[in-house]
């Protein structure tokens, strides 16, 4: 089997936010939102990123795109180091990677027509202008399932699902190869979610896109992703192909997550064994020593309180960070 290309490589990514107190704004600590995260994203695949609030998945996405400049670590896009880029070089690199936002109601400029929203990126990057740009806009709208007649409308005239389609079209204007989907369907009604997910899958097939799909909706992520990564308090705890990670989750947190995810089948729900975690997620400003999950882990051992487990490849393609499987 041919080695698939690595499109995006994340190496030991860290994103710390300083906590400032007092009149002089002294830095008293850091929120370690992302604390040493590494993974590869292969060309043409969808990598799902899941985790609960505060796990750092959104911050990771912003750090990859250099919307936050990472505190440490490297991000390679098509082989080039994004973290080392500045100014114009970075700006041009942005056409290779785009993002779709969660909230369709705030991700489009309410005072710009759909046409302008879509032609602007093209003009700015010299992809197309004038008549050519308009034609391309019509193409894109058609591609995302919308009537090209809508170019003169304002975002407020569209429903959530339609706005999301416009957001997707906007991401496509600059011909990216990589798109981060940050909870793109969470704000939509259930029946519309399916429409958008199907659209994303179709576009991936037709345009050869690579996705990083972030969501808290586990079943949706499983549905759309080839591989999934689970994050907890700024670290990746497990990474494996979707099928495997769902049927044989190895990390206790992953097991608890799957157990908690509701399945729309009353027969199954009735008979399921539930792992219910105790307590709340600790604060990223003060993560537990050792393994960050040990405070809630039903299988914690002594070593878990002292030493942080490393992310290791237990089986081909299946990475876990847990002392239960360590050496």
């Amino acid at each position, binding site marked *: 089997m041919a080695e698939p290309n690595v499109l995006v490589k994340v190496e030991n990514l860290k994103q710390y936010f300083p906590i400032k107190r007092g009149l002089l704004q002294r830095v008293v600590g850091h929120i370690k939102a992302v604390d040493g995260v590494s993974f590869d994203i292969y060309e043409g695949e969808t990598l799902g990123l899941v985790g609960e609030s505060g796990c750092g998945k959104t911050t990771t996405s912003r750090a990859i795109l250099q919307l936050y400049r990472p505190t440490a670590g490297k991000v390679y896009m098509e082989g080039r180091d994004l973290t080392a880029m500045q100014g114009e070089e970075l700006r041009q690199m942005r056409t290779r990677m785009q993002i779709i936002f969660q909230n369709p109601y705030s991700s489009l400029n309410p005072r710009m027509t759909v046409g302008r929203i879509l032609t602007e990126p093209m003009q700015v990057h010299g992809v197309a202008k004038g008549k050519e740009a308009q034609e391309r806009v019509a193409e894109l709208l058609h591609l995302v399932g919308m009537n090209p007649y809508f170019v003169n409308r304002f975002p407020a005239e569209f429903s959530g699902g339609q706005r999301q389609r416009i957001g997707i079209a906007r991401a496509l204007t600059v011909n990216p190869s990589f798109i981060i989907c940050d909870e793109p369907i969470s704000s939509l009604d259930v029946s519309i979610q399916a429409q958008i997910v199907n659209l994303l899958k179709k576009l991936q097939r037709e345009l050869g896109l690579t996705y990083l799909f972030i969501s808290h909706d586990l079943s949706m992520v499983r549905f759309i992703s080839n591989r999934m990564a689970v994050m907890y308090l700024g670290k990746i705890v497990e990474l494996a192909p979707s099928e495997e990670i769902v049927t044989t989750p190895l990390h206790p947190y992953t097991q608890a997550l799957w157990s908690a995810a509701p399945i729309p089948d009353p027969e199954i*729900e009735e008979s399921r064994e539930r792992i219910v975690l105790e307590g709340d997620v600790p604060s990223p400003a003060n993560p537990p020593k050792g393994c960050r999950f040990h405070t809630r882990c039903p299988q914690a051992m002594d070593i878990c309180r002292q030493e942080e487990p490393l992310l290791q490849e237990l089986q081909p393609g299946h990475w876990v960070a847990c002392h239960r499987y360590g050496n």
Partner: protein
Amino acid sequence: MTLLKVRDLEVRFYTKDGEVRAVNGISYSLDQGETLGLVGESGCGKSVSTMAMVRLLPEPPAKITGGQVLFEGEDILHLKPADRHQVRGGKIAIIFQDPMTSLNPVMTIGDQIAEAVQVNLGLSGEQARQRTIEVLTQVGIPKAEDRLADYPHQFSGGMRQRVMIAMAISCRPKLLIADEPTTSLDVTIQAQIVELVRRLQQELNMAVIWITHDLGVVARIAKRINVMYAGYIVETGPIKRIFKRPSHPYTVGLLGSVPRMDLGTDRELYYVEGAPPDMIRLPEGCPFHPRCRYRTERCLQERPLLVEVEPEHRAACWNIEGLLADQANQPMGEGRA
């Protein structure tokens, strides 16, 4: 024993854009100790109908234009404002989606819960305090006594939801209305809250109406469900029967469009065409027909009423046979026919 009987409930909103027909004549009943799930997407009327029952809707612009709600035999819909507080809190309790905005941020939680029991049960100060500690412990808040003086913002999201539940059960209500209480919570916290409500329900023999759009959550907690669309109940019955044999095109669509952790992924998600209806300008005939693939001429003109599919399971559709036959040949979730 029937605790709640809703008959032909109708609610309208009068806005400057027109009259919103939010709830259009729904009827159902609920027994003591039973859990009913109200399922539907935004705008279908699930929240509005329950808020209307306890007169928590702002009237105007809302107006209850018809129907009866019998609670323990008494019509609570037409209670005088002065008498409504007897039902709220004491007999019927509500928990909402966002605990941050439904708890008073400038009152300690101890005070808030004590207030509820003092007003509704007439307990004295010390008795109220004891009861408060009792319910906080019951909902799983550790060291409840020490936390009485804490404010809502000092609790995490899941804990706040527990506090709200504590407040709700403090007066031993017969009916608990849970309006999307776990929608904004993380999945592991959601599981905790769902388990909590299940446990409390058994301990207190409470009836529960659980409102949600999440089919997975409702599968866990409800025994019967009402599927709502455009202010109507389009399917109702025991949850297992409905999930096994969905008999309304909307239910079929909903179930098919939700991916499942335990099923494979090499298919397209079955999706429902179009978008939720404009509640000001509902279509003629069946409200779902613009999006329905089983529609016939009749559907455009006449609105179908609930008919029996099997014992206790009813759906409002003119073409149930066609739908069931189709589903038998091609189980839902295998793409679009």
